[in-house]
């Protein structure tokens, strides 16, 4: 009994340490967003400054709320579209046996291995020719097709949605789309939540593509808005860090809201093969 107690204390201490290491940089970020840029240059301190209001002013004078709106449009619609595409495709690979399925699924797995950045130049040329430059579409439609999403959904559906359920639904006269949307989808909510969160993070943080396809400031997303954030005369690091801190908030809220479902999605999906 006593050793168990000691063990628990040790574990608790390690836990606190790890949490500190993970959180300390964020603490620094918050501290830095309350300081004057030139004070940050002198080294990071542990105590907050009194410059937060000024920094916030700089950030919102640069129309940060507009970037925020754009980022929300991008992340929400890209995530929704991607979930739709991945669920359809994953369901198909998990539940049906059809000609070429093995080959096509292998193709999906290979796509996971190819960094999308490889075809960047050609991608930009393509965006131009279909008139998508300076719109948010290149950030919404292309990321919808992720091999990872399909793989994730296929795994989850394959191990959590019994085929028998499908058979009985068919007997009741349900069409295939109806089986998917009204029977399967409610069963795989955790998988949708966890994939959705991961997609949202990726889309919210997306940097390279928007940097290149967005040339008008009213289309900037949060990461692009942050790097272009300048007050008159100087590179305002404190304001940028303030903007970075604000930029993380939606992800944080989303994670806290979905944490439970997210974790159960992983538990149900990834454990089984």
């Amino acid at each position, binding site marked *: 009994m006593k050793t168990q107690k000691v063990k628990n204390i040790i574990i608790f201490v390690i836990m606190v340490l790890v949490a500190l290491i993970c959180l300390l940089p964020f603490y620094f970020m918050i501290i830095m967003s309350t300081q004057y840029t030139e004070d940050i240059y002198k080294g990071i301190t542990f105590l907050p400054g009194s410059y937060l209001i000024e920094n916030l002013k700089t950030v919102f004078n640069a129309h940060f709320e507009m970037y925020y709106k754009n980022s929300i449009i991008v992340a929400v619609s890209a995530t929704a579209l991607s979930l739709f595409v991945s669920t359809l495709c994953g369901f198909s690979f998990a539940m049906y046996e059809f000609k070429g399925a093995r080959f096509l699924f292998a193709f999906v797995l290979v796509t996971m291995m190819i960094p999308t950045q490889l075809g960047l130049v050609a991608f930009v040329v393509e965006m131009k020719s279909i008139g*998508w*430059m300076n719109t948010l579409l290149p950030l919404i439609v292309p990321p919808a097709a992720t091999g990872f999403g399909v793989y994730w959904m296929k795994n989850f559906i394959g191990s959590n949605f019994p085929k028998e359920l499908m058979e009985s639904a068919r007997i009741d006269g349900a*069409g295939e789309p109806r089986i998917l949307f009204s029977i399967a989808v409610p069963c795989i909510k955790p998988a949708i939540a966890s994939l959705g969160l991961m997609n949202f993070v990726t889309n919210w943080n997306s940097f390279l593509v928007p940097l290149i396809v967005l040339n008008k400031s009213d289309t900037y997303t949060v990461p692009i808005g942050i790097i272009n954030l300048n007050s008159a005369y100087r590179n305002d690091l404190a304001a940028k860090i303030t903007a970075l801190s604000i930029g993380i908030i939606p992800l944080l809220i989303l994670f806290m809201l979905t944490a439970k479902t997210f974790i159960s999605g992983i538990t149900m999906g990834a454990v089984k093969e």
Partner: protein
Amino acid sequence: MRYKNLKKLAATGTVITVICSALAGCGTSGGVSSEADKGSSEAVKTEAAGDLSEPKKETKGEGTETITMWGWNAGDIEKIFNAYKEETGADVSLDYVTVQQEESFQKLQTTISAGLDLPDIVPSEVNQRGTMLSLDIWEDLSAAPYNFDKSQIFEYEIPLCSNEKGELCALPWDVSTAGLAYKRDLAKEYLGTDDPDEISAMFQTWDEFLEKGKEIREESGGKVYMFASLTNVKQIMDGQNPQPIVQNDTLDMTSVKETLNWMIKFRDEGIVDNILESSTAYSASYADDLHIFYPCAGWTPNYVIQPNDPEGAGNWGLTVPPQGCFSWGGSAFMIPRDAKHKQAAYDFISWMNTEEGTRTQREVVNYNTSNVEAYKDPEFAALYDEWFGGQNIGELLFNKAMENIQVRPVSTHDATIMEVWSMVTEAVNSDSSIDFEAACTMFENEMYTLAPELKK
């Protein structure tokens, strides 16, 4: 049965909609585009036009013509532009796109390679200007219909704004002549005087500077350095050795060797601290009492010294370095040949280089821009900066420096040269085992690797 089919149809429809939006994009998904706010029908119209990715006429400004401009000084440009409209009555408005200096060159490249519309005015920092100008896409501003009169601007700026054919394709913005700034309190303590003329008399050659630096180090117990950063030494030395580094696709190491020689000597003798310019410590060093000298061009007091040494008003001095003044940094503007509003763009940037424009910019944003005539008026050429106490820094930057300033014409390989410089500087700074020979070899090898077309 029928009901079921209907459902099937609906589902098929959903799938088809997804595919259509993926393929066609323009029509069905116009709502998410940037023009979303302005009504989707309008958005569809502009996007469907395909090639015309130039947005429809902006409605926000009252002007009939809208100039698109890139840059990293949004607040200042806005003030300058308003003053321009007020003074000339020009019927234009400005669409200013903030582009970070570091990303501006890459943005230009992708815009060109994707065949997108370039803005009407493209800014360039001197280090990348040569590479940008080497693209055959710019208007020759000294030719018709513009016929910019080169004698309006300082003579030294012409090679900094011309392409390799000698066409003036850029108009300068700020005067970039530079001297040596120093902290007065440290100068008094270690040099015995804070008078700019006495200091410049004290240092006729860099050797004398080096000797003094060694003395100061001893005197201060190894605490006080002449320079904070080897990057600064590079900037000054390189500015003073205007021999071209690449000419006719051949690498000429003369000037690089001269610069590296001093950098390594200064490093080995310990008169320069190990702070790189890209580090935050460099910015902080302006306010400390350990580093005496910094390079200082016309833009430096506003952009660098004041914000980094907020309590240092009156503690700065400006003098002529050994071997004279040099050019450091500075921006210029170019107009793409395919721009939509070339004349309006030209009117604006050439106004910035008129006497009136130069005076106005001093007034509204405290910039020193490039019209020669303006500076012939001694009153205008005199520039008293609060941070520099009672010193007339304009005398040095706009008169003395102009007498014998020499510059290296910008060239195609400038961006590559910059990249190699920052790598070599970082290496020399952090590894004291790299000697002069090794540094030269590293520079040469890097150049040949990055620019294989150079003849060996």
